[in-house]
Structures are given as structure tokens and as C-alpha cells.
């Protein structure tokens, strides 16, 4: 077993590289930039030739483009990019069923790759000199020609040396958080999370992990009994331990708490978790620690896209962005007109208002805004604003209690064509009667009732059969999803405990029919960080309480 010590050289190195070219001083740092971004230390793009004549440069010519950031390669439909980690290049190729597992049994390969996978070849270990020959001329140490799709690189000697020293480090040791018997995970709870919600989510965690570990113990207890070739994978099995990291106090203090938790017990990844309004410090901790953080239950995702934090959706800002796209070009688009948005000051209201504002920028819509103080009564201010401005569309970024205080059927609201609410703020479908009902629109980023992915029904049965009340169903389903995707991804990486490889596997698995049913579909891909990408705008069905129907189709907003 390779060591599972503290944060390795690679992590430290990657931090340097991630911080920008100015600090990438070491040879391996230069190599990392060539490998990941296809950029020379001078900032000029790396250039290469593929298929004998097609020139590729920069990101397209980067090693990571095919062999991925992890170096463990990829099998993409018609293309097999073998591993190029230090141990795999600088050791002779082993014929190992666990290593070949995904190609043999999990991937769908065209005929040529299918037969190649079943006819694997050995080769001697690369040396720095033979690796250089492979990169320049496409010859491997056994004298075979590499596939013509592998680019031939014209790298100057010092850069070639930098790349080789980076490749020697790549994947050279297991990530922290993995012992010989146990793999450690954490789940993070923000302060002031509703205790009932936390209990509901923890019950799912406990039930899943207990069953998972029981299965693993059963397999390990029976060496030699090897249905489905389980014995070949014994070395990759680990018992799961999910640590609970409870944050306290102001968000400004969270980073120190997270660092302390991590120092006490390094974990391989963070799974699920519950946030309230603020998630930025957790996001930044995960990115800077290069720690995969999968699918936290948050309405306001972190400040920017990163490499390690994967979200279920864009949350509330995603709903507002979808509304902007709807007002610009949806079936009820306003080519021009007056829109008023009302929000409570605070992170949620401001995030929604900001996203709608950004989404409508440049549109021929006059947008007015009314920001209400955290404790001020909403009704009188809104009525006054509506009376004076007479908007065609009134967007009420308000929660249930505020809405309950408005009589949307009464006079100042009677002339408004559309009144828009956000499902994410209400948490459930509101009950609205009276004359305003047919003018209400609701951003609805979820699967439409009755059209949920079928797995929802299986997971509901899973919850029931374990005696778990589905009182926080969405958070429970998402927690189950984070655990299942992790299980599948670990199955794919077969003991090669690289966090980058893990994230690459999760990107792939997310699209594979594991959608627990809250969102209509989930998918990720290289560099994609939000699994559900859009929202519906819905209205109430006439004559049926709480029944909704979409106005137009699923809206995927542009990233403005």
C-alpha cells in the first residue's frame, strides 16, 4: 500500500501553480503548466502535431486534455488515453485486472479499442530519454509506434525536462484521507442549520454507510470466494468513515475551523452537507486544499467556479438568471417594458436581485428595484412602489410569510400582467387563490410533478424500508446521491486514490442514471461544476389547487 501521509508534494506544488505563473519557479511547476494548460514558462502556447498533420496548440495540446489532470487517462468513446502517472510511466507496464477493469467491463468501446483492451501489451519502464523520444517521435520503449492521435511535441529541451520531472511526481502517492483499511470523508454543517434537517440528513448518511461497510466486511471476510472477480479488487476496498464537521460562529472564522478539522483528520473528500446562506468560506477551503466537495445542500453556491467543488445546481441565482432569459426570449417575453423586482436585504434577496439585474443587462427592459430592510413590513412599501410605477412584471423575491401579508388580488396589483415568485425561496408550492392566481408565475428549477426521474420512487422506497421519514426529502435525496456517486466513482478508480481522478470519475458518473429525482436531469463534464443547469417558469393549472404547468420549455440561461 502506498503511503497515506499528510498533504503531499503534489498538493503543495499544485497550489503554487494554481496561484499563477509568477510563483511557478520550480522545474516541476513549469512542467505542471505545460501538462495542464499547454503553456510554456514564457506564456507561449505549446504546439504539437496530431494525425501526422493537424496542428494543435495551447489547451488543445495540453497533456491534461486527454490524459486528464489526474494523469490516469480517460476512455472517451473512440479514444483511449492511457495513464501517464509517474508510477505507470516509469515502471514497466503491468498486466493487472484491477487496472484494466474499467476498460474491460465498464466502458463502451468501439471494436478496435475493445480488442486492444483484451490484448494488452507489456513495455519496459520509460526513462527520461525514452519518454522524450515518445513525446517527440511517438515511439515507445519497446519500439512500437504510439497511436497517431497522440500528438508529437516539439518542446525545447529545458521544457521537456520540466515536463518529465512533473510526470515523475504525478500520482506518485495516494491522497490524504486514505488508510490501508479505511477511507475518511467529512460532511459539513453550517451553524444555525435546522436540527431536524440535520437529523434527517444524518440518518441517510448513517444508513448508507452502515450498509456499505457491512457489504465490504462481508467481501473481505471471504477470501477466495470471488463472485464477480471481487478478489481481484480486495486491495481497493476500504471501510467508510464519515466525520461530521460542525461549524460555529461567524463565516469569517470558518476557515480556521475547517483547517483545524482537516489537520486533526485529513479526509479524502467532503460529501453532501448543509448550508444556510453563506458557503463561500467552505468553497474556498475545498479549492485551496484541493479537496473534492460534492453536492452540498446550499441555495447560494460559492463565489466562483473551481476545480473541486461540485454543486447540484446554481441555486437561487440560477432561478433569477433563468427568469431573465425568460423575460428576454421566452414565450411571454417582454420586448420592452417595466419590470420591478422586490427583495429583502440579505444574502438571498441580494443574490437573486443581482442575478436578475445581470441577466437583463442590455435588454430593452426598464428594471426598477425595491430593497426592503430585514425587519420592515413589506406590504406598504410594495403597494406604494407598484402604485407609482405600474410595472408590467412584478418580481417578488420574498419568502412565504412576506407573501402571506400581501393581498395580490387587491387594487394596486390588479393591473400587473405577471407576478413572479421564486420556488427556491418558498421551499414549496404556495397556495394562492383568487383573481391573481392566473397571473402568477413561479421559477421552478425542479422536475415537474409527475415527471420526476424514476429513481425517485426507488429512493423513496429505500427511505421507507429503513424507517426514515422523508421529512426533508430533497436534502435526503441529495445526500444519498452524493454517497452513491462517490461509491460508483471509487468503484471506477479501483484503488488509485487520486482526488483529481475521483473528481473526473464523478463528472462521468453524474450523468449515469443516478439522478435521485429532484432535478429533471443531472450531468457534468470536464470543468463543469453545476449538475442541473436550468429552470422552468411555471403557472398554476386552472381549477386544480397546487397543480402547475410549465410555460415554455426548460430554460438554460447564459452565464452573464
Amino acid at each position, binding site marked *: 500500500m502506498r503511503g497515506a501521509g499528510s498533504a503531499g508534494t503534489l498538493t503543495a506544488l499544485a497550489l503554487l501553480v494554481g496561484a499563477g505563473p509568477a510563483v511557478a519557479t520550480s522545474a516541476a511547476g513549469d512542467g505542471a503548466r505545460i501538462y495542464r494548460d499547454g503553456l510554456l514558462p514564457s506564456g507561449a502556447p505549446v504546439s504539437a502535431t*496530431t*494525425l*501526422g*498533420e*493537424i*496542428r*494543435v496548440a495551447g489547451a*488543445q495540446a495540453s497533456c491534461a*486534455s*486527454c490524459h*486528464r489532470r489526474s494523469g490516469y487517462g*480517460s476512455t*472517451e*468513446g*473512440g*479514444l483511449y*488515453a492511457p495513464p501517464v502517472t509517474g508510477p505507470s510511466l516509469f515502471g514497466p507496464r503491468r498486466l493487472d485486472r484491477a487496472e484494466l477493469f474499467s476498460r474491460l467491463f465498464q*466502458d*463502451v468501446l*468501439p471494436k*478496435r479499442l475493445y480488442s*486492444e483492451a483484451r490484448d494488452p*501489451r507489456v513495455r519496459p519502464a520509460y526513462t527520461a530519454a525514452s519518454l522524450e523520444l515518445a513525446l517527440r517521435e*511517438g515511439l515507445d520503449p519497446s519500439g*512500437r*509506434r*504510439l*497511436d*497517431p*492521435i497522440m500528438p508529437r511535441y516539439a518542446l525545447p529541451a529545458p521544457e521537456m525536462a520540466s515536463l518529465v520531472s512533473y510526470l515523475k511526481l504525478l500520482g506518485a502517492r495516494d491522497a490524504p484521507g486514505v488508510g490501508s483499511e479505511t477511507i475518511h470523508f467529512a460532511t459539513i454543517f453550517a451553524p444555525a442549520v435546522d436540527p431536524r434537517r440535520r437529523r434527517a440528513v444524518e440518518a441517510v448518511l448513517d444508513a448508507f454507510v452502515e450498509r456499505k461497510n457491512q457489504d465490504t466486511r462481508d467481501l473481505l471476510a471471504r477470501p477466495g470466494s470471488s463472485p464477480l472477480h471481487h478478489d481481484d479488487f480486495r486491495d481497493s476496498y476500504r471501510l467508510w468513515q464519515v466525520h461530521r464537521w460542525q461549524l460555529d460562529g461567524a463565516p469569517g472564522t470558518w476557515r480556521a475551523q475547517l483547517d483545524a478539522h482537516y489537520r486533526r483528520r485529513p479526509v479524502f473528500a467532503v460529501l453532501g452537507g448543509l448550508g444556510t446562506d453563506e458557503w463561500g468560506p467552505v468553497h474556498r477551503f475545498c479549492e485551496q486544499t484541493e479537496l473534492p466537495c460534492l453536492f452540498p445542500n446550499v441555495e447560494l453556491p460559492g463565489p466562483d467556479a473551481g476545480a473541486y467543488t461540485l454543486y447540484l445546481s446554481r441555486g437561487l441565482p440560477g432561478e433569477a438568471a433563468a427568469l431573465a432569459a425568460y423575460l428576454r*426570449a421566452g414565450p411571454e417575453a417582454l420586448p420592452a417594458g417595466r419590470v420591478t423586482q422586490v427583495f429583502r436585504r440579505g444574502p438571498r434577496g441580494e443574490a437573486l436581485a443581482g442575478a436578475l439585474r445581470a441577466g437583463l443587462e442590455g435588454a430593452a427592459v426598464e428594471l426598477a428595484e425595491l430593497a426592503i430592510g430585514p425587519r420592515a413590513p413589506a406590504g406598504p412599501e410594495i403597494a406604494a412602489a407598484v402604485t407609482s410605477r405600474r410595472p408590467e412584471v412584478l418580481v417578488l423575491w420574498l419568502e412565504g410569510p412576506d407573501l402571506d401579508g400581501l393581498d395580490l388580488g387587491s387594487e394596486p396589483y390588479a393591473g400587473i400582467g405577471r407576478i413572479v415568485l421564486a420556488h427556491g425561496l418558498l421551499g414549496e408550492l404556495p397556495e394562492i387563490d383568487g383573481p391573481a392566481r392566473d397571473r402568477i408565475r413561479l421559477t421552478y428549477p425542479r422536475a415537474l410533478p409527475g415527471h420526476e426521474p424514476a429513481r425517485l420512487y426507488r429512493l423513496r422506497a429505500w427511505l421507507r424500508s429503513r424507517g426514515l421519514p422523508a421529512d426533508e426529502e430533497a436534502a435526503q435525496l441529495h445526500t444519498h446521491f452524493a454517497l452513491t456517486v462517490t461509491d460508483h466513482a471509487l468503484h471506477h478508480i479501483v484503488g488509485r486514490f487520486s482526488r483529481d481522478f475521483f473528481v473526473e470519475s464523478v463528472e*462521468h458518473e453524474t*450523468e*449515469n442514471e443516478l439522478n435521485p429525482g429532484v432535478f429533471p*436531469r443531472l*450531468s457534468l*463534464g*470536464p*470543468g*463543469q461544476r453545476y449538475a442541473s*443547469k*436550468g429552470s422552468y417558469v411555471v403557472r398554476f393549472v386552472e381549477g386544480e389547487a397546487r397543480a402547475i404547468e410549465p410555460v415554455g*420549455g*426548460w430554460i*438554460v*440561461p*447564459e*452565464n452573464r
Partner: protein
Amino acid sequence: MLAAALALGCGAPLQGETSQAGHQHTAAAEPRFSRSLVAYQVPAVDLVDMDGRRVGLEAALGGPGAVMLQFIFTTCPGVCPVLSAAFSAAQEELGPELERVRLVSISIDPEHDTPQRLRAYAARYGVTPSWRFLTGSLDDVVRVQKAFDAYRGNKMRHLPTTYLRVAPDDPWLRLDGFTTGRELVAEYRRLAAAP
């Protein structure tokens, strides 16, 4: 759909396919791509172009002139950059003939590949007005992939395929595998010269 396939030279060595084109892990020269002529029914769906305009697929692929078609996605790690680089090279290789050829790249990851992202991707390959990128609703894009026998469920399983047609009522020449721009243009010229 496949029943309608007029199997023609599928897997047969191509003219101009030298041992150079066959360099594989295996020492033996074998063709890098295979050809078949297939009559596909273009589905009546509306897609969306790089400027966010709705485009009927039948109109985008129909009309006079030749069409080259590929399925790609902008975050695709290995396959699509090579497919798109071949289109990019084919644009140059065609020279003045480019006026009579339309290149169409359809995203198979439409939820991520918004018109804005397609524009950014296209800019990397030096697109001319003859080359369009299309996206759309996921359901419509799945229909189109199924119609061209290109749907593989997970986008990471997609195969490198290029479709070529010189006139609207012709069957499609389907090229499975990686091609260079020069090879694409050679295929086009051969097809255009056929009686």
C-alpha cells in the same frame, strides 16, 4: 435506420489511405476510419445557432451545396478537439470551394453548450461563415443523434464520426474514426465527382 443502410465499402481501404494513415498501436497498417453510405431521415427539429437564433435543422442541412456534419461538445477532453481541428483544416483545404460546402457542428451537451459557449469554442478554430455550431434542447439534440445513429447515452461515450453529403437527396457518407482535414476534403471531392 440502419436497415436503410446501403453498406458500401464499410471498412474497405480507402484510396489515398497509405500506411501513414494506419499507424496504430499495432504494427500492421489498418484504416483509421471506415466509410458507409446511409440514408438518414433528418428530424424536423428547431435548434439554436451561435447567435441564439432558432434554426430548423432540415433547412440547415438541406438546400443546395454539400454538408459536412459532426457532433461535438465544448468541454470534451480528447475527441472533439481533433474533430473540430479537422473541420478547421478542411475549411482551408477547400479554398474557394468552401463557398459550396457547409460545415455543421452540433453540440451533444446542449445544456452546458449555450450559444455563448459555442461562440467561444468556435473562435478557437477560426470559423468562417461556412461553419455553423448548433445547440438546442436536450430532447431535440438526442433525437438528432438517434436519427444519425450517433446516440450513446453518456456524452463521454460518443464516437468520432463525420457525416458528408453533396446534395440534399443523397444518402450520407458516414466516416467512423478520426480523419484529417485533407482526408475529409478528399472524401468530399471523390463523392462530388461520383456519377
